[in-house]
């Protein structure tokens, strides 16, 4: 049953761009990129239980790495390597406060970091071009295959999503995933069983942030122009919403959450005469009130009946 579901989903994702207009393809590509970023946050928050309001900042770090390097003629794979290394290292360092503080205190620490990154992107003009942003970001050519077209770039992003999904699936099913779950459920007991909770906390932050960086590397050539506002706190909160709405700690949660956050408002826009954001907000609030474990938590509850 699961295999049939995944096959149908995959076929739909492959066929979808051929049935859509350019704006539809753009939205679908945005969904792919945001899903990747949300997968990273789901690893940190959903599996390891470490709240982070900084995921948008890591998308920004990845996006600026790609934008600054590729506009200077560097290939995109170099940007991938540098963005992953940067996000991994900074994510590791951001994990240190999590060894001292938890829950809403940790949320504030990560929120401060997100604000710091935004201010750096805006004020360090010599590097980031400040509020003027970086334009003409090229899309890559891979072994002679150009991704300049919207459909081609969508498939490129879809391929990266597949790789990130497989890697994350492997990770959460490995002993690391079990240790992350233990960290989330009872860190003191995990520690007493030999689980190095400090190291796993740092790893959860580092890996989740690195995946955020990967999403950023795709975001820059997708929009081809970036400026700091795109990576302010709104993005981090939006990513948090995606993870919560989809279902924290569920593998498919980010896919569903990103669909709700990216696609639902656009779908509701038609025929709502500008009131769609209000309807969208009410729908999200109702969902969170009915099922705080997200849509997949709700589905699991129904299936168990």
């Amino acid at each position, binding site marked *: 049953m699961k295999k049939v579901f995944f096959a149908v989903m995959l076929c739909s994702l492959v066929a979808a761009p051929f049935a859509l207009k350019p704006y539809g393809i753009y939205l679908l590509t945005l969904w792919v990129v945001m899903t990747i970023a949300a997968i990273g946050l789901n690893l940190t928050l959903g599996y390891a239980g470490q709240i982070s309001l900084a995921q948008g900042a890591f998308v920004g770090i990845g996006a600026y790495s790609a934008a600054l390097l590729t506009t200077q003629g560097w290939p995109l794979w170099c940007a991938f390597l540098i963005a992953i290394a940067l996000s991994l290292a900074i994510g590791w360092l951001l994990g240190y406060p999590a060894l001292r503080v938890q829950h809403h205190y940790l949320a504030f620490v990560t929120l401060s970091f997100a604000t710091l990154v935004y201010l750096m992107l805006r004020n360090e003009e010599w590097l980031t071009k400040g509020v003027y942003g970086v334009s003409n970001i090229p899309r890559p050519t891979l072994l002679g295959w150009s991704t300049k077209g919207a459909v081609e770039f969508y498939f490129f992003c879809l391929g990266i999503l597949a790789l990130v999904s497989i890697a994350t699936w492997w990770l959460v099913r490995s002993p690391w995933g079990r*240790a992350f779950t233990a960290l989330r459920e009872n860190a003191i007991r995990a520690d007493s069983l030999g*689980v190095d909770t400090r190291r796993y906390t740092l790893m959860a932050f580092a890996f989740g942030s690195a995946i955020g960086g990967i999403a950023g590397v795709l975001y820059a050539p997708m929009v081809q122009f970036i400026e700091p506002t795109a990576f302010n706190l709104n993005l981090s909160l939006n990513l948090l919403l995606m993870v919560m709405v989809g279902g924290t700690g569920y593998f498919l949660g980010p896919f569903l959450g990103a669909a709700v956050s990216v696609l639902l408002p656009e779908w509701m826009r038609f025929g709502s005469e500008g009131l769609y954001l209000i309807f969208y907000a009410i729908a999200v609030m109702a969902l969170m009130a009915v099922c705080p474990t997200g849509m997949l938590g709700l589905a699991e509850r129904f299936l168990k009946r």
Partner: protein
Amino acid sequence: MNPVLEVRDLAKVFGGISAVNGVSFEVHEGEILGLIGPNGSGKSTLFNCILGQLAPSAGQVRIDGSEITGMRPCQLNRLGVGRTFQLLQVFPQLTVRENLILAGQEHKGSMWSRLVGRRDAGVGAAAERMIEFFRLGTLAGEKAGALSYGQQKLLDVAMAFMAGPRLVLLDEPAGGVNPTMLAGLRERLREINAAEHATFVVIEHNMEFVMSLCTRVLVLDQGAIIAEGTPEQVRSNPAVIEAYLGH
């Protein structure tokens, strides 16, 4: 020969309250030591100081002659020290089998091998043996959160033994467990003690359980040891009777 566990002048002060007050004792290989005392006498605090959950205000703790005072719990666990807590501490979202694998996985291989290697980290067979030993076979695939209190307690104890520890500190293992299950638990502990020559320190309020399981008993009151001896000696000690009954 060095004792397995040696505690010297251990003290823990919370603000103006002295929870543990210069406690010293030794536990030798294969011994089952009972640690009893009225509520608030400092038993769990003493455990937490020995096991790195709390930093002691003074004193030393040695395992096999090596000082381990202030070591982190995960480091102590890797030295062969297991424990259970006073309150249930299983991972409700993991199955019984996964709880047991988790309890043993960090003792095998490196961080890298745990990322790219086998899902069960090479301790799946050991987990199955533990499931069989603690009679949890029918529950192996169930989430721990769905088990009854007594079953979770059994799982909790089983997890402490997954890494094949030399020394296990059990904090109220009999609490909330029905008499039939308790007899089974006592039997399992005796078997491990005999077969592996494992050393136990057991905090317990259930006197019948302590007296039938332990070879030696320490009595703690107001953070200090007030009596020590065989279960029979302790049972008839006037200081112990006074500490428990207040007259």
